[in-house]
Structure formats: structure tokens, C-alpha cells
């Protein structure tokens, strides 16, 4: 494969004295589904708009497909953006919206019409061309915005929180469709989202951003299993944090006891455990690696899962444990005693 399709070197952005983007280096490969994930105000949208050309970086170099983009306006960049508000032109029909960017193409009228119909077919809106856009639902407007960008066959498609305005069902459906589309057209997608679940589901790689900086860049699995910092671990999924003291290659963890953790210098910190790596032990369960006991302080029933908050003996705060509701498995009640199995291999160490 050739070089990265997007390459940022030392890109910064500040508005007056506010630093929206710390110096950022980032390479995104061709054909990747890449996500910028972070809470609002973390600079992810600024980064996206810098790539699109709507923000001029205060410093650093943005390259797209090897070409320096300094001074190149948005209309001359090989990128297209799907706006958070969709930005559908209200005075144009669906077909006119989708064909908006084709004015300068050398295709004949019939070819353009065919391209519009093909793009509409790609997003499941065959035959919607002549309709006005004001009567369309949020999901349909979203599809029009997608078709309008994809018809231009950009090298990179930028998506600015495209699903945040949709209801849950529709959002999940669109997540699947976006992935399918991305594989089908083979274009690099860069998605901005504050929804960690969405980023995990859809992306090949994720950059987690806090306060204008990329905190960690990894695959979804690595991000979930091996977060670099407590902040990342806390933002991605649910993580139980337990204070720990590291002494002589082992750790004394509040509520869980002593466990061997070689290659750790002496000192203090916390260890993290995901809810699904802990399990409430029922009679007859296989003996796990380690067992701890505590009181069930809260039970949250989700139908397929039950979440237990269990306070281990000798710990200050409860940990969250997720259990599948298998057939014949009783749901524990609040106040019950729980024996909890856990595995030291699931521990993630965060040093102070």
C-alpha cells in the first residue's frame, strides 16, 4: 500500500487564547474506517473541519494523498463532509440535492441523472429523486446527505456526528448501513462521534481525544482491553477502578487481595476490571482463578443481562458486574451475599 491518505504533522488550532487543538500528528490509511471519539469540546470536530478545509490550522501541515493542503479551499479538496445537520438544500428536490456537486463534471445530462439514481439506490432511496426534501424524515435526509457526498467519489468521506439526531433504532440500523457502504465503495471514512459504542461498532481504528489532544489511537479491541489512561478507560465502556499498592512485584488490591504483578515498580495506583471479567458464582460453577466476597448493593435488570453492584469486603466503593441471564439462573436480590470470581489476567494497571 502507498502512503497514508491523510497525514497530519504538528497540526494546531487556537481561537484567541483558547487552544482547540494541541500539536497533533495523525496518519489515516486509505480504505480505513477511522473514528475520532471524545466528549464535546475535545477538538474532534475542529480536527475534522481542518481536514475538510473549513478551519485553517494555526500551525502544522495537513496532507491529503501526499499533497499539502495549505491554502486549498474546501471546494478544491478531495474530501466531502456529511454535516451534523445534514445541510440539505431546502429549495432543491432530492435529485437536485444529490446532483448538486455534479455541475462541473463533463458528463451528459442523462449520465448525471443515472449517477444520481445510482447514488440514491446505494442509500436505499430509489425513486425518491423528484420529491421535495422538506417532507423527509431525519433518516431519509441523512441518506440524501450521504448520497450527495458519495456521488462525487471523494478520496475521504468525513462524517460529523451523522447519527446523533436519529432515534436509537434508526441509529443502530444506520450504523450497519454505513459500514456496509464503506466496504462497498472502499472510500476512507472518518467519523466524528461522542458515542463510544458507535465508535467501537463501526471503526477499524479509533483516536480518543480529550482537551484537544489524542489520548490513545488503537483498534476498538485494544482500546477496550488495554486503555492507556484512566480517562480513556473510563470513557470507553464501563470500567471498575480499585485502588492498589504495588510492592515487590505484586499488588495489594482493595477488596480483591494480593496478586502477582511482575514488572511493576513499587508505588501506588489503581487497577481496572471490566464488568464482564467478573462473575457472580452460582453453585456448581467451575472454580475460577480467584474468588472475592461481598454484598450486593444494587441490582439493575436489563432483560438479557443483569448488572450487580457488589461491595467487596474491605473495599470502599462497589464494583459493577454484568451477568448474562441464562436459563435457570436466579437473579440475586439487593442485600444478598455474593461470591465473585475474577481473573488476574483481566487486570489493567494505571500507575499514579
Amino acid at each position, binding site marked *: 500500500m502507498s502512503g497514508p491518505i491523510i497525514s497530519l504533522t504538528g497540526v494546531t488550532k487556537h481561537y484567541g487564547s483558547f487552544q482547540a487543538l494541541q500539536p497533533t500528528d495523525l496518519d489515516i490509511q486509505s480504505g480505513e474506517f477511522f473514528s475520532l471519539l471524545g466528549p464535546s469540546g475535545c477538538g474532534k470536530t475542529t480536527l475534522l473541519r481542518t481536514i*475538510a478545509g*473549513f478551519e485553517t490550522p494555526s500551525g502544522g501541515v495537513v496532507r491529503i494523498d501526499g499533497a499539502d493542503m495549505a491554502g486549498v*479551499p*474546501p*471546494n*478544491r479538496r478531495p*474530501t*466531502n*463532509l456529511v*454535516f*451534523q*445537520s445534514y*445541510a440539505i*438544500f*431546502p*429549495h432543491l428536490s432530492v435529485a437536485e440535492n444529490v446532483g*448538486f*456537486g455534479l*455541475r*462541473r463534471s463533463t458528463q451528459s445530462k442523462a449520465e448525471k441523472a443515472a449517477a444520481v439514481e445510482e447514488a440514491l439506490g446505494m442509500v436505499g432511496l430509489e425513486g425518491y429523486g423528484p420529491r*421535495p426534501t*422538506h417532507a423527509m424524515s431525519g433518516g431519509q435526509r441523512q441518506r440524501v446527505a450521504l448520497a*450527495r*457526498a458519495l456521488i*462525487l467519489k471523494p478520496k475521504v468521506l468525513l462524517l460529523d456526528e451523522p447519527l446523533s439526531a436519529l432515534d436509537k433504532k434508526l441509529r443502530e440500523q444506520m450504523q450497519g448501513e454505513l459500514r456496509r457502504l464503506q466496504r462497498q465503495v472502499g472510500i476512507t471514512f472518518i467519523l466524528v462521534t461522542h458515542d463510544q459504542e458507535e465508535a467501537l461498532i463501526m471503526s477499524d481504528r479509533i483516536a480518543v481525544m480529550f482537551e484537544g489532544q489524542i489520548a490513545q489511537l488503537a483498534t476498538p479491541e485494544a482500546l477496550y482491553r488495554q486503555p492507556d489512561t484512566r480517562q480513556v478507560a473510563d470513557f470507553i465502556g464501563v470500567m471498575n477502578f480499585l485502588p492498589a499498592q504495588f510492592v515487590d512485584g505484586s499488588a495489594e488490591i482493595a477488596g480483591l487481595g494480593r496478586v502477582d504483578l511482575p514488572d511493576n515498580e513499587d508505588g501506588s495506583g489503581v487497577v481496572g476490571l471490566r464488568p464482564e471479567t467478573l462473575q457472580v458464582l452460582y453453585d456448581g460453577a467451575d472454580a475460577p482463578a480467584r474468588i472475592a466476597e461481598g454484598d450486593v448493593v444494587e441490582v439493575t435488570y436489563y432483560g438479557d443481562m443483569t448488572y450487580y453492584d457488589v461491595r467487596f469486603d474491605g473495599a470502599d466503593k462497589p464494583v459493577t458486574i454484568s451477568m448474562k441471564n441464562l436459563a435457570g439462573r436466579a437473579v440475586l436480590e439487593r442485600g444478598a451475599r455474593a461470591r465473585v470470581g475474577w481473573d488476574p489476567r483481566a487486570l489493567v494497571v494505571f500507575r499514579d
Partner: protein
Amino acid sequence: MQDDTRRGLLLVSPPAIYALLMLAAPMAAVLLFSFWSQDFLTIDRTFTTKNYVEAVSDPLYRALLIRSVAIALAVTVVTVALAYPVAYFVSFHVHPSRKSLWIFLITIPFWTSYLIRVFLWKVILGFNGVLNSSLLGLGVINEPLTFILYNQNAVVITLAHAFAPFAILPIFVALERIDRSLLEASQDLGESRFRTFLRVTLPLSVPGLVAAVLIVFIPTIGDYVTPRLVGGPNGLMIANMIQTQFLKLNNAPLGAALAVVAMASVTVISLLFIWLNRRNLRARR
């Protein structure tokens, strides 16, 4: 529901009665008069259309009507052409916190009576006026310009100045309502700023543009004071003739017919203009 309707009717009735008395009743009277005729000092109340035949066939009246329409169109074009850039500037290039100040400043001409402003234009445009003496003093011209006062140019200049704020405000409101992400979307889809203006900003500002055109065109065509004061003999318009018929020639029926013809012309031209722009005026979110 019925209670709501009753309360609604009660609320609108004072202005409705006022409008009925002060607008609909006089209009009906004008319409009625136009089908009567003047018999020396008395009004002959037999139905006749001879006033209308005279109003449209007499070359003098026809010339005045065509001139009124032409001047009104010229005023409209000049005013809107000047107002659009101002509205665009305030909407797109003035910091949001200063926009209301700008709009406030734009309304300053209203602080002076319209009559006084017309007189001021006489002072500016006159033979020994501000403009001529300045240009003479600067050596740009050798003798005073005479084509700027007491003719149709003077009427257009004066009316365009008077109506500019009326045109700026609706255009400004229409521009303010345009979602800025649409402009970015257009650029993102490959269009330059200028093309974006033509394909997105301009069509989306059409409702304001149409409002501005109607607000300027409709009152201008029947304007009476301005042509009277700065128009000279060749700048007189249909309203001046209507006044002459009513007050000097003592022929109210013919004056009424001329007024109805003028109103009908305005209506037809306005409706035609709205119809031409129907595509960009349709309701939208």
C-alpha cells in the same frame, strides 16, 4: 374551541373594524364613484364605463400610467440593488453582537419627516445645490448639471433613498434565516463562494427579495409628493393627475377610475412577479 374562536374574534375586532372603516369603505366609495359621471356640478349616478374608456384610451393618461410604472420599476431596481449588498454585509460580515446596532443605524433616516428629506434632496440636487457647487468648485464640471433635478432622475434618486431601509430589512431577515451550514455544504460539494451565492444564498433569499420589491414598488407607483416636489413637469406621475381630477378639474368619477386603473396595474404586476418567483417562495422548513 368555540371559546377560543370567540376570544380571537374579540381580539381582532378593533383593528378589523378600523381597517374596514378606513380602508375598505373608502375603496368601495372609489370603486362606486368610478362608475358614475360628473355632470358639471353634480354627480350623475347612472352606471357608466366611460371613465374607464377615457382612462385607458386618452394618450395623456396612458402616458402618465406608463411613466408611473416605469419610474416605480426603476426605483425598485435601484433600491433593491443598493439594499441587497447592505443587507448581505450586515448579515454575513457584521459580528452578531453588532447586528442590531447596524439595523438601528439603518433606520436613522426615518427620524426625519419624509417631506423634509425630499426638500433636502432639492437642496442637494438643485442648480445652485450642494452637488453642483461641489463639482464646480472641484473643477469636475464647467456649468451646473441640470439633469439631476426637476425630472424623472430626481424622482428615482429621492424615492430610492427613502425606501432603502424598507428594502434592507426584509432581505436582511431572509439572509439571517439561511442555515450557514448550507453555504459550507455547497463549498464542500465543489462550488466557489461566488457560485455558492448564486446557487444557494440568492435562491434562499428570494422571499426577502420579493417582499422588498413589493414594499418598494407598490407605494412608489402611487407616490404623489415626490414627483410634485422634485419631478418638474416631465416627472409627474399618475397620482398627481388623480389629485388634479379630484381637486382642480372637479371630476371625481374620472379621478376614481384612474385610481382603480392604477391599483389594478399594481395588482397585476405584483401577482405576475410573485408567480415568476413561485418556485423559491414555496413553504419550507
